[in-house]
């Protein structure tokens, strides 16, 4: 009886331990790295998702953050077990809901990368894909060789999904990504002054055209004519 109880207890401990520890690194496509947990080695590529922008700590951003995480999670699973997708948490007690997600994102750790690699927080979140191990003890040496940086700050969720799909294709097909980021992720080249003036003129005329409305109220009949549909 005692022997059976011991065996049962041991079995429960093994199951619980495995559940909490999660799979070993080489099998894990998405790494949930707690604050003191180093980035695992021996992967072909490392895709680091860096959130350095303090705006993402706003609780109002929770749903967007959760969406980003899910996109990145899918990306991490799609690129395979030999390529790491790293997302920094400051706790491994994350929940699969958006209630307190922003609170447990390890922004401070991401900021160290952004400072060392000179990434503007306002342009983030950033996705850095590198085939060189991102050694956190040698961050001051700058962005590793064979790295590509993607700025996702101005991108909509569908655009991010599209970008991640392209990157997945490249990582699966070539085992690396183009070190020159795609056009989707880089800001457009600066436009000349006259084009900006022309754009401003167009916007001004358009906004002026939307500024009026025509209203008729004749007892039982009323009509409200607006020049533009409000957006």
């Amino acid at each position, binding site marked *: 009886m005692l022997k059976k109880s011991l065996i049962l207890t041991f079995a429960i401990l093994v199951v619980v331990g495995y559940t909490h520890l999660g799979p070993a690194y080489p099998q894990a496509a998405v790494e949930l790295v707690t604050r003191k947990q180093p980035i695992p080695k021996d992967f072909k590529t490392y895709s680091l998702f860096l959130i350095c922008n303090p705006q993402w700590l706003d609780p109002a951003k929770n749903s967007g953050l959760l969406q980003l995480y899910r996109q990145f999670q899918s990306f991490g699973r799609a690129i395979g077990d030999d390529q790491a997708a790293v997302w920094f948490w400051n706790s491994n007690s994350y929940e699969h809901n958006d209630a307190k997600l922003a609170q447990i994102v390890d922004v401070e750790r991401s900021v160290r990368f952004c400072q060392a690699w000179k990434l503007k927080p306002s342009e983030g979140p950033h996705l850095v894909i590198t085939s060189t191990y991102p050694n956190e003890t040698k961050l001051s040496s700058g962005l590793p060789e064979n790295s590509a940086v993607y700025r996702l700050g101005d991108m909509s969720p569908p655009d991010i999904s599209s970008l991640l799909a392209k990157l997945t294709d490249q990582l699966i097909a070539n085992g690396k990504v183009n070190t020159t980021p795609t056009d989707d992720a880089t800001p457009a080249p600066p436009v000349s002054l006259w084009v900006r003036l022309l754009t401003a003129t167009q916007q001004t*005329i358009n906004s002026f055209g939307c500024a009026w409305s025509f209203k008729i109220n004749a007892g039982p009949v009323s009509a409200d004519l607006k020049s533009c549909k409000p957006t």
Partner: protein
Amino acid sequence: MRIAKWHPGKLIILWSWGSVFAALTLTSFLVSPVSASPGLHLCELLITLLIPAALSGITWTWLSGRELDI
């Protein structure tokens, strides 16, 4: 060409057609983003501005104050 003899009705026709073309070019200028074709948009805006300017010039130079001469 003796513009001084134009009938006021012709003046209305002239401005009506001018307004139509100006409206068309202005619409074309407004409906698509400038970044798609900046040069074309610039032409459309210039035409939109030039049409009323040209018609105003014609009206002012040749057609104003000639009612007594007709």
